[in-house]
């Protein structure tokens, strides 16, 4: 009762308050045809005696006028391309009047080419409709949502979708989507429904941070597959639907500038361009070429500091249709130039050979300055011959150029460590320039040959390339204990053997693919049944070259001090011919052929979509290994039958229940199959390939309830279960000849992944809330090693089986966004929080020593305000909490030990608490800009 009392008082007070209003006019505005609420319609209330007030409808189509004068009133409602609505009402004093307004679209009678069903495809409404009407389990994010969201890359948009978390790169930008805790390998990326090749050396699917957010009309996240979709998406698929030619002439323009808090605090480090070559001397001059020092540039080791470089965000899209509406075109240009810094601390860990407890061996301080330039040009052209035939062409060019400076200072925590602030120190200034490009041409045709028979086809040529050059200098210094007890700061010298390392990596991935589908829709038993059959074929060729050159010191000048200017030092080429035998020099061909049969019909309230897909995979490679080693050449062939069934039971026009089964596969990445032994310099362990890696297969079950009470509101709740055979995970393994553990992809029996998701969107006038939550549980069992001292006093180990979640899978993922939208004043604001629960970052070879990423919450804010007609000013602020990326081991840091030994005292570590592994911070990022729509 005590708790109720204040509530009652509040209720009473508000009732009294309400009663004091003279009169109230409330109402809703909807589309007469669809019944959808109309957001942003202008409602004017006036009377003859000069009273006139206007308001805009809210997100739910509602409006309200308080303190309206009693008497005869006129209501006028206007909305673009809808007919004006007028009505008169009689309002009594102290009364409330509810008005229902239905607007009718202006009819377009210009010609007989029917242009139907467009609406505004970029709107939230259409995204919700898509979710409701789709044949499969999907979530969609509209361009409008993206535009007002804080996100500027597609990767960061995906994390707003239920059950999706993201894997970030080392500048804090999202890079890959993790759907329902399934590692990125299980999720494919489509552009307009078709795969594009990846410039990423390690992954077959294109990273999402390459796409600026403003080029897409809609982002779709598929959580189940239909037979007409390619089957290698166990987790699901991300489809970027690019903007399409609009019916009316449209121009959009966007210009903004950005600022990173960490750059503002610390400045930004730039480096020079290689003025000699972008490809390796070996590639330029042939395998037998002996490089000389003149082939290498010092420029990438010339560093300068910019105090406050500002980012640029610009976009322009122009589109429209010819007068007869037959030909449409849209060209979008986008440019982003972003500067960010990352600061981090990292502990290299090992385990104590007796207790198997975590043992820290090095502490590293890392700073990054990362510049990312995204440039893209996208053209979409379509031509409608008549109502039954149309073709469209999509040509895109996407380019991500990244300049990254990294400085690592590594202090050894075992040898020569006699106290805090002492030890051997290696320092590595490094610059890395990577240019990724994607060219994509898609030609697509739809032909309706008869009323119940149609055919569509697609031809695609696309190519992705990446050129990454790295320049690292190895420096040595230290603070070592002297015989007299003092600690001496050693001068900074250049590591005579390692000197400079210059790495030149290049890879290209080219796809030629064709798709052909037939759709036949006869009426069987009074029910329209849609049969489709189709096939596809893709020829993929991937080429990779990799060379590493070491520029060491001449023996006669083996001790050289480094004063910050590398031009004062002398180097000689130690590796004259690069690394021609590195297996990252390879040619890989993959031919995938697919065929499917699918049917779909609706009977009563039940929609059934089912069928089976066949995929044949044929892979071949030749790499640069000598014939005396395993895997110089390889060929792998397999095929899969992938049935699926999607049932949708429509309880009423607002509620669905879906039950879905589909079978899917995941093909290993090329990088994982090629028996390489080098590659990622940032990897904590040496990575090696596994030519015997199998493809993973999975059975996926989904059950989902959907409720769409109003056009923008929704409630989705579902459960899922996935049974994955031969899941692919990275594990540390011991190879026969090598001294240390290496990191290698392998297959691990059977994994089970299950959970549930809830997704709620609710709008009340100017306010909206979007929230989703996903719970995921997975289990996989692998063999781990446990070190101990045996009865004879010798250090040795035993193997133990341990179960754990899949790598990268968070048990809890949540999202919440609060939105405010006032159409009249043209003000939009949104605050979004994402919670990603703890997850395994990397799997240790040792029992209980897996490295976990701590659960974290990121908070982003964005706002937009109309300043003049169609001109808006907007601001975005991301990572408001400066959320750190934290890694740890779920084992207590050991009790205090001697310096250099297990449990030594060191900053960041507290005995008895989880062992600290890494912390990176990225700082806030702010964007301010203008955009203009015509």
């Amino acid at each position, binding site marked *: 009762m005590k708790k109720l009392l204040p509530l009652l008082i509040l209720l009473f007070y508000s009732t009294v308050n309400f009663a004091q209003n003279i009169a109230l006019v409330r109402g809703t505005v909807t589309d007469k045809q669809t019944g959808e609420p109309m957001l942003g319609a202008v409602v004017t209330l006036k009377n003859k005696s000069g009273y006139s007030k206007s308001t805009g409808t809210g997100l739910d189509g509602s409006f309200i006028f308080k303190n309206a004068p009693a008497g005869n009133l006129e209501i006028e409602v206007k909305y673009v391309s809808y007919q004006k609505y007028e009505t008169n009402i009689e309002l009594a004093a102290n009364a409330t009047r509810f008005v229902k307004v239905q607007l009718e679209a202006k009819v377009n009678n210009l010609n007989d080419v029917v242009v139907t069903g467009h609406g505004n495809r970029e709107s939230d409404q259409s995204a919700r409709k898509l979710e409701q009407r789709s044949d499969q389990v999907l979530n969609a994010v509209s361009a409008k949502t993206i535009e007002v969201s804080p996100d500027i890359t597609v990767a960061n948009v995906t994390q707003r979708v239920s059950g999706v978390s993201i894997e970030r790169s080392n500048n804090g930008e999202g890079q890959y989507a993790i759907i329902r805790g399934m590692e990125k390998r299980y999720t494919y990326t489509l552009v307009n429904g078709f795969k594009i090749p990846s410039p990423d050396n390690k992954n077959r699917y294109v990273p999402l941070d390459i796409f600026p957010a403003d080029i897409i009309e809609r982002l779709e996240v598929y959580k189940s597959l239909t037979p007409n979709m390619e089957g290698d998406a166990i987790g699901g698929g991300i489809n970027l639907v690019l903007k399409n030619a609009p019916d009316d002439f449209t121009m959009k323009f966007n210009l903004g500038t950005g600022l990173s808090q960490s750059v503002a605090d610390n400045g930004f480090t730039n480096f020079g361009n290689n003025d000699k070559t972008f490809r390796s001397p070996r590639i330029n001059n042939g395998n037998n070429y002996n490089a000389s020092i003149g082939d290498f540039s010092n420029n990438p080791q010339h560093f300068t500091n910019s105090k406050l470089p500002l980012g640029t965000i610009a976009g322009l899209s122009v589109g429209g249709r010819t007068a007869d509406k037959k030909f449409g075109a849209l060209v979008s240009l986008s440019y982003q130039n972003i500067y960010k810094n990352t600061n981090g601390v990292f502990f290299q860990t090992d385990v104590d050979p007796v207790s198997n407890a975590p043992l820290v061996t090095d502490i590293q301080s890392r700073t990054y300055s990362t510049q990312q330039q995204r440039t893209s040009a996208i053209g979409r052209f379509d031509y409608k011959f008549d109502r039954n035939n149309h073709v469209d062409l999509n040509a895109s060019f996407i380019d991500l150029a990244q300049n990254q400076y990294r400085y690592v200072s590594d202090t050894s925590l075992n*040898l020569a460590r006699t106290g805090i602030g002492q030890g*051997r120190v290696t320092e590595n200034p490094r610059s890395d320039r990577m240019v990724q490009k994607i060219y994509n041409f898609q030609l697509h045709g739809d032909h309706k040959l008869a009323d119940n028979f149609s055919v569509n086809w697609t031809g695609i040529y696309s190519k992705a390339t990446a050129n990454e050059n790295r320049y690292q200098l190895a420096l040595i210094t230290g603070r070592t204990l002297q015989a007299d007890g003092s600690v001496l700061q050693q001068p900074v010298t250049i590591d005579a053997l390692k000197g400079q390392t210059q790495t030149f990596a290049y890879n290209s991935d080219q796809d030629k693919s064709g798709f052909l589908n037939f759709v036949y829709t006869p009426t069987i*038993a009074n029910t329209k049944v849609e049969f489709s059959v189709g096939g596809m074929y893709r020829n993929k060729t991937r080429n990779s070259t990799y060379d590493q050159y070491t520029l060491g010191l001449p023996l006669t000048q083996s001790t050289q001090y480094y004063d910050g200017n590398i031009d004062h030092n002398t180097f000689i080429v130690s590796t004259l011919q690069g*690394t021609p*035998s590195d297996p990252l020099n390879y040619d890989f061909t993959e031919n995938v052929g697919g065929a499917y049969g699918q049917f779909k019909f609706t009977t009563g309230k039940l929609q059934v979509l089912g069928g089976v897909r066949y995929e044949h995979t044929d892979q071949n490679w030749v790499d640069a290994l*000598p014939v005396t*080693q395993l895997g110089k050449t390889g060929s792998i062939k*397999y095929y899969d039958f992938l049935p699926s069934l999607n049932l949708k039971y429509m309880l009423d026009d607002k509620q669905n229940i879906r039950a879905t089964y589909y079978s899917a596969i995941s093909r290993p990445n090329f990088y994982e199959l090629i028996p390489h032994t080098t590659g990622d310099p940032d990897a904590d362990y040496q990575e090696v390939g596994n030519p015997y890696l199998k493809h993973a297969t999975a059975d996926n079950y989904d059950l989902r309830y959907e409720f769409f009470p109003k056009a923008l509101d929704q409630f989705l709740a579902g459960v899922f279960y996935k049974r994955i055979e031969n899941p692919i995970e990275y594990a540390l393994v011991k190879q026969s000849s090598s*001294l240390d553990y*290496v990191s290698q992809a392998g297959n691990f029996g059977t994994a089970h992944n299950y959970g549930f998701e809830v997704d709620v969107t609710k709008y009340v006038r100017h306010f909206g809330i979007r929230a989703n939550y996903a719970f995921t549980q997975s289990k996989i069992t692998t063999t781990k090693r446990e070190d101990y001292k045996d009865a004879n006093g010798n250090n040795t180990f035993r193997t133990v089986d341990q179960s754990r979640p899949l790598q990268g899978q968070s048990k809890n993922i949540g999202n919440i966004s609060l939105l405010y939208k006032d159409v009249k004043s043209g003000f939009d604001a949104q605050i979004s929080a994402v919670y990603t629960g703890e997850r395994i970052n990397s799997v240790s070879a040792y029992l209980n020593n897996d490295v976990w990423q701590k659960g974290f919450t990121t908070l982003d804010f964005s706002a937009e305000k109309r300043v003049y007609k169609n001109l808006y000013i907007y601001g975005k602020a991301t990572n408001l909490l400066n959320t750190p990326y934290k890694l740890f081991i779920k084992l207590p840091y050991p009790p205090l030990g001697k310096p250099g030994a297990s449990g030594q005292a060191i900053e960041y570590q507290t005995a008895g608490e989880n062992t600290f592994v890494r912390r990176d911070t990225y700082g806030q990022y702010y964007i301010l800009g203008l955009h203009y729509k015509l």
Partner: protein
Amino acid sequence: MKKILIQLTAVFSLGVMLSACHKAEVVNISQPLVSTANGIKSDTLSGTVKGTMLAGKTYYVKSDVTVNDGDTLMMQSGVHLIILGDGATPASSPEIFMHGTFISLGTKDAPNYITVKNAADLHTQAAAQNYTNVFKGWWGGITCTPAAPTPSKPNPAGGDAIIKWTHIEFGGAPAGTNDDQSFYASGDPRYNMYFANITKNLIIEDSWFFGSKDDNIRVSGGKISIMRNTFELCGGVGGEFFNMKSGTVGDLAYNMCIGAATNSLKASDAGTTGTQCNVNMYNNTMVNGGYRQTKTGRGGSIDYEKSARGSMYNNLVVNCRFGPRITSDADVVNIKYNNQYLYGYSPAIVAQFYSVDGVGTKQSGDIMSTTPQQNDPKFYGYDVNQYNFTANPGPISANLQPYAVIGIGTSNFKLQTSSPALGKGKTDFSPMMAVKTTGDFGTTITLPGKDIGAYQNDGTGNQH
């Protein structure tokens, strides 16, 4: 009729759930090519070989040579094996890939040589204090590892290496095409010898090693018996004479070590073999080590590092930049040590008799002073004060080191009868004797000696 559709659907649904079919991969991965070994028919070894190099003859190696698993390559006495390498590229710097057994049976009177064509010239340059070519690394060394697994031999274990009265010199050319990247990344300097056959024996007796670019010998697992050898002038800017990792078990005794870039002998359990590195080092003499290592916090004579264990007795350490060093992460409680003899020219050397960043301390039987130039060990033919270590505390480039300080040359490190090191050795402990075989193809272990250092006054110990 609609019912029928629904029924059909139900039947189909069941069918669907059961019909997923995944064809296992048909995989065809090229297997490591194992060529049939040829006998030694000419004076040039090439490709895959096995057999015996006959006494007193000279043989040549122009390109990489492989010995298959189960095969033996043997050198009788007095054999010269000349490696024709230029050290410029991996392809022009041959390596001996030893997946079988390697035997080099030199004798005191007819030692074997595994060296390069211009060896005499290189020795002359060294004697003239010009080391640029000496440390260049002219060939790829002898690499003793298990063969790549093949379906017929899924678990090859490699073979023994038995080396007696043999000179091995001038290895260290960059690794490349044919090397296992897990221990020789492309471009890395290779060693004179690499041995990683954890169940096999590595026996090196009465042999000479000279002029490697980096480490001279590295052992990543194996049963070792390293007796009475001479190590000189190895490591241009870093590297050890004998570097032991996880899986290495055995004895190192009566070795004469002079002019190592870093340590002479280093034991560490780095690696993951599951067999703890456990080595006894006794009666070794180490002179002037550790000065070319440009990195700080390294050793200069003997190191026991990460989890390594063993024992260390009767070693004579003269003017090394750092004395014996037991790091705090070594298996400290299982390291026994005593009876070392330490001499230092400068205060800096004296202060590091037991390296200050280690946990080793003076033991009851140690001979060491806190004053520089105390306890001259009185070598027969070497002046311990001939070089000014106060002025050159290290790190220094090789060209600042006179040949006499880093090579044996005309020096003689036997002890005078007046040496305070005589009779101060500990003899009441046993070698580990990890290598059980004795005789021509086995080991001859010299037991702990009463005089500290490699040379015993009774003529036993190092025979060079």
